[in-house]
């Protein structure tokens, strides 16, 4: 469980990135922080592994204030996935995945064997293990990033716009695989995105943020879609747009779901 308790972040120049934000992220759940740039979502994420220290308030993991923990130990105990993977360009895929286990004293041979297993786990051919990041596609790099985050078997995963740098087709595929993976591993995941569709696709709970990390609305994706709290949320999720207003049209005895522009999106199963 991750608890944000009245965290506040103000920079020396007076900019308030996060204003008294409180939230509980239950264990084994996926919480999506979604907002446009300037919403403070990434700042919140980085407070969990102390990449950013709040000006006031506390972040705690299972009841322990993160400030009481050693930064490096804390970071190694948390999986972190960044946009475009954040891989080290001069190390092979396997070495990248094995980075933290090797730092933690696991033997290179063992860490490499584990890395190969993790690569398979995230849907990568182990033949890629000795390639360098730049030789991989964006989607492959992203998968390596996920494998690396899982390498030390952390309880918590933080994901910063994890699938922001790949094209829509690959993104959909990665999201589907991430869901399947999470069903299997059940980590506590906090991820930030500016893409509401990604938030809905991955989040058990979605927290819509305004400027300064003010919570506009939080709830399950369906709840937010059903009842946007205000115009801001409504705009943000695109309520009322063609994509979100679906109707049923009967075609040859089957119910086809069409969007606001009459474009079919699927078939209703009864």
């Amino acid at each position, binding site marked *: 469980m991750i608890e944000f308790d009245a965290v506040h972040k103000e920079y020396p120049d007076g900019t308030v990135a996060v204003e008294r934000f409180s939230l509980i992220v239950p264990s084994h759940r996926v919480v999506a922080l979604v907002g446009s740039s300037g919403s403070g979502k990434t700042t919140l994420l*980085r407070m969990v*592994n102390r*990449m950013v220290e709040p000006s006031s308030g506390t972040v705690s993991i299972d009841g322990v204030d993160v400030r009481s923990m050693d930064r*490096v*130990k*804390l*970071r*190694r*105990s948390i999986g*972190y996935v*960044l946009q*475009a993977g*954040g*891989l*080290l*360009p*001069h190390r092979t895929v396997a070495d990248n995945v094995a*980075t*933290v286990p090797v*730092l933690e004293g696991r033997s290179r041979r063992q860490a490499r064997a584990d890395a190969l297993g993790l690569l398979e786990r995230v*849907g*990568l*051919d182990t033949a890629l293990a000795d*390639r*360098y*990041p*730049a*030789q*991989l*596609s*964006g*989607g*492959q790099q992203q*998968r390596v990033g996920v494998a*690396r*985050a899982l390498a030390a078997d952390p309880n918590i995963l933080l994901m910063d716009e994890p699938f922001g740098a790949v*094209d829509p*087709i*690959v993104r959909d*595929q*990665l999201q589907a695989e991430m869901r399947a993976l999470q069903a299997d591993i059940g980590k506590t995941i906090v991820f930030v995105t500016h893409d509401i569709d990604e938030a809905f696709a991955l989040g058990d709970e979605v927290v819509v943020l305004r400027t300064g990390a003010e919570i506009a609305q939080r709830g399950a994706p369906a709840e937010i879609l059903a009842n946007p709290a205000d115009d801001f949320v409504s705009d943000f999720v695109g309520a009322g747009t063609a994509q979100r207003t679906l109707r049923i049209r009967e075609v040859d005895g089957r119910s086809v779901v069409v969007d606001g522009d009459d474009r079919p999106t699927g078939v209703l199963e009864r």
Partner: protein
Amino acid sequence: MNLLIEAVQWLLDPVNWQGENALGMRILEHLGFSAVVVLVAAAIGIPVGTLIGHTGRGRGAIIAITGGARALPTLGLLTIFGLWLGIGLEAPFLALLVLALPPVLAGAYAGVESVDRATVGAARAIGLTERQILTGVELPLAAPVIIGGLRSAALQVISTATLAAYISDTGLGRPLFTGMKTQQYDMMLGASILVALLALIVELCFQLVQSAATRRAEPHNGHQHRAHSGARERIAA
């Protein structure tokens, strides 16, 4: 043309490779003295430059100092140091150090600073200590630029180390100055050719080391299966 032939003849004359002033000895002196200067410049410049690149602190100061130091005439400095320290290697050592430090500092600082901040941030976020970031990420990635700084320092020091003979009996500057004073132009030109050759050889060595470092920093270039941008667009297998 005649002079050039005479210079080459002087260089090939076995007499000049024997005895107290043997050219082999002079070459070793020249190289050894230059190496000491570059090593000391590296020992000071690389840690300081790296620290500045890593922390981003002291940037303005370093740019001002290195820029200013580059404008100093080495011969003038040598004269001042010579008047202060007297005859010997101390004065040329200091003057050449002032010449060598700016490129070394600039290379170390620029190299470390040019490492993608996102890569460094990612390394920090997954739990590398600052020292591990420096030795495992920043230095290997910055190595080609750092070595580039050493390379330009070495080149300048080797060509300028002739000035050491101005104030001490060291290096290939000796036959150069003697030749000038005694109007033995074959000697003077011959020594100059040797200095140029040394500089070229050292330059070549540094080139090899630098490209080895580049291969380590960017291992994907060279033996790459497909183009960088093409790979990005490929849909994951």
